[in-house]
């Protein structure tokens, strides 16, 4: 009989006696696990067809000079065959070291790094501050919590338009600044202020998730630890530093990683806030989208190459992050 549940009996894969031959092992493994494979097959097929194959295909595209003028397409009844050519690593060379590489890649790269660091930093500190405030006992904290998660509750594509109205020339924010006698920057035109506005909007959107996750983490900390610390005469700061922060560590390491990945790939906010009007405020994701779909002719090869570079950056970051956590004796879920 096929006993699929072997974790319950504590049996491990390594526990087996001398390994039989490869053929028999495959057969055995099939007999033992066909059911598990049958259950993951649908996911494996969908992911394979729509993620792995596109990834491989996308990688192949980066080695060609494909754009919307030379790929296969059908106009009316005429079918035009693809005429793009294999160019090796030229796209990567061009993106990273080409003539205008700084304007096309490195400036966006630096801005993306700054964007990710600033946004995740702001999300985390503001989220932690609000979580600490909400973790106290006082009347009305449920009410505050309900209002504070509002930016997460309303879909991003709705709230970003609200911000766009407010940031427009003569919109609410500039009117208020003017009334206070402060300078009124051109939020949606000037590069620096565009970046400022993008970070502001993303911070506004992202804090609730951090706040709720950290609040969950705070509530899971054993209160007797605080009592013990207080008995030992720890000040409020010391209790925060030596009880709260270590207690939040596992939640923090997960949400920070998720935050970095999400912010790095944050497409909707910049795309909806500026559209195609702000080439300098585009992070790498939106810039790659612009190359592939926002201009004519559409440059598929370069767009895909940016995508592969982005993925490479994220994978490198994640593995370093994991190693760093492991060195500090922490396990991440991955």
């Amino acid at each position: 009989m096929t006993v699929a549940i072997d974790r319950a009996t504590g049996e491990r894969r390594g526990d087996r006696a001398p390994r039989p031959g490869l053929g028999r092992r495959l057969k055995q493994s099939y007999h033992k696990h066909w059911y598990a494979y049958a259950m993951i097959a649908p996911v494996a097929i969908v992911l394979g067809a729509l993620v792995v194959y596109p990834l491989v295909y996308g990688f192949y595209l980066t080695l060609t000079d494909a754009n919307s003028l030379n790929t296969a397409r059908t106009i009316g009844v005429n079918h035009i065959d693809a005429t793009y050519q294999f160019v090796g690593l030229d796209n990567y060379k061009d993106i990273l070291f080409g003539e205008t590489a700084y304007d096309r890649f490195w400036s966006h790269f630096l801005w993306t790094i700054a964007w990710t660091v600033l946004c995740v930093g702001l999300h985390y500190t503001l989220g932690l501050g609000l979580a600490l405030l909400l973790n106290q006992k006082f009347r009305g904290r449920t009410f505050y919590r309900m209002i504070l998660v509002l930016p997460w509750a309303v879909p991003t594509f709705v709230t970003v338009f609200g911000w766009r109205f407010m940031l427009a020339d003569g919109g609410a924010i500039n009117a208020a600044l003017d009334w206070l006698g402060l300078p009124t920057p051109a939020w949606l035109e000037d590069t620096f202020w565009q970046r400022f506005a993008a970070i502001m909007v993303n911070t506004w959107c992202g804090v609730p998730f951090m706040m709720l996750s950290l609040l969950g983490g705070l509530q899971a900390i054993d209160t007797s630890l605080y009592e013990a610390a207080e008995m030992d005469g720890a000040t409020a700061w010391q209790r925060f530093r030596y009880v709260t922060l270590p207690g939040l560590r596992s939640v923090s390491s997960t949400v920070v990683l998720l935050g970095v990945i999400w912010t790095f790939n944050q497409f909707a906010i910049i795309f909806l806030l500026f559209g195609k009007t702000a080439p300098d405020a585009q992070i790498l994701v939106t810039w790659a989208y612009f190359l592939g779909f926002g201009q004519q002719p559409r440059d598929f090869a370069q767009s895909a190459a940016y995508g592969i570079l982005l993925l490479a950056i994220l994978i490198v970051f994640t593995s370093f992050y994991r190693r760093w956590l492991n060195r500090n004796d922490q396990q991440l879920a991955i």
Partner: protein
Amino acid sequence: MSTTTVETPAAQAPEATPRRRTRRRGERGPLATVASHALLTVASLIALFPVAWLFFLSLGPDKDDYLHPGQIWHKMTFDNYAFVLQHTDFFDWLKSSLIITLGTTAIGVILAATSGYAVSRMCFPGYRKFMWVLLVTQMFPVAVLIVPMYQILSDLGLIDTYIGLILVYCTTVVPYSAWLLKGYFDTIPFEIDEAGRVDGLTPFGTFVRLILPLARPGLAVAAFYNFLTAFGEVAFASTFMLSSDKYTFAVGLQSFISEHDAQRNLMAATAVLVAIPVSAFFYLVQKNLVTGLTAGGTKG
């Protein structure tokens, strides 16, 4: 609790010492309370303002009213809402949004449940790798996949169809929900599976008849996650949906600005109409959503 409740001396000699009550744990001085209320109020106002402002602007009848919000007070009207409901593609967008989000939710939960169960209960060779693949797919930037996906979908004739977009969304929601459901299935005792097997159920029967009913809360969280993700997605929807009657709300809203570049009052009204039901839905589930999200992330 008993650490700092030293009230007895003060109570015994009230006239000697001016009533100095020692604070209990978790209690703060009035100053600290005022300060936290003030901070939270400011934060709440910041959180509330953009949404409230959008609602306020949606009441102004003229397309440039957002520049003179003061005038809206005198001519507030719900005309924008009436116009949006009667003369725009609102209901087409609603239909396609619903088809796509509900389709993604249903298919996504089914796929995620089977694979989550397989990963949770069966130590098949390669299951760690499978989990890792699920996690890495969440890292994929839109830009890697969107070009090849576009090519593949157009080869298959699925551009501008509901099923095409549903499949694309499934690739983004399934990995996460499978991860989440695996965490939930892990909390259901293995003995239940064994009991079912002893009573002669097939593995699939155990899953459908015993585990799925028990995992209902977890399934609900996964479904909500799928729903909210599919509803708010922008990049794929604006690339793969070409005809305006198949736009989802995320794309439809943009068309107010890019086509006419003026009808901001209508856009605000549509935005509010979209936001109300979704936010209500969100509030119903938000607590479960957060526990689900972090539990799936930390337990592994």
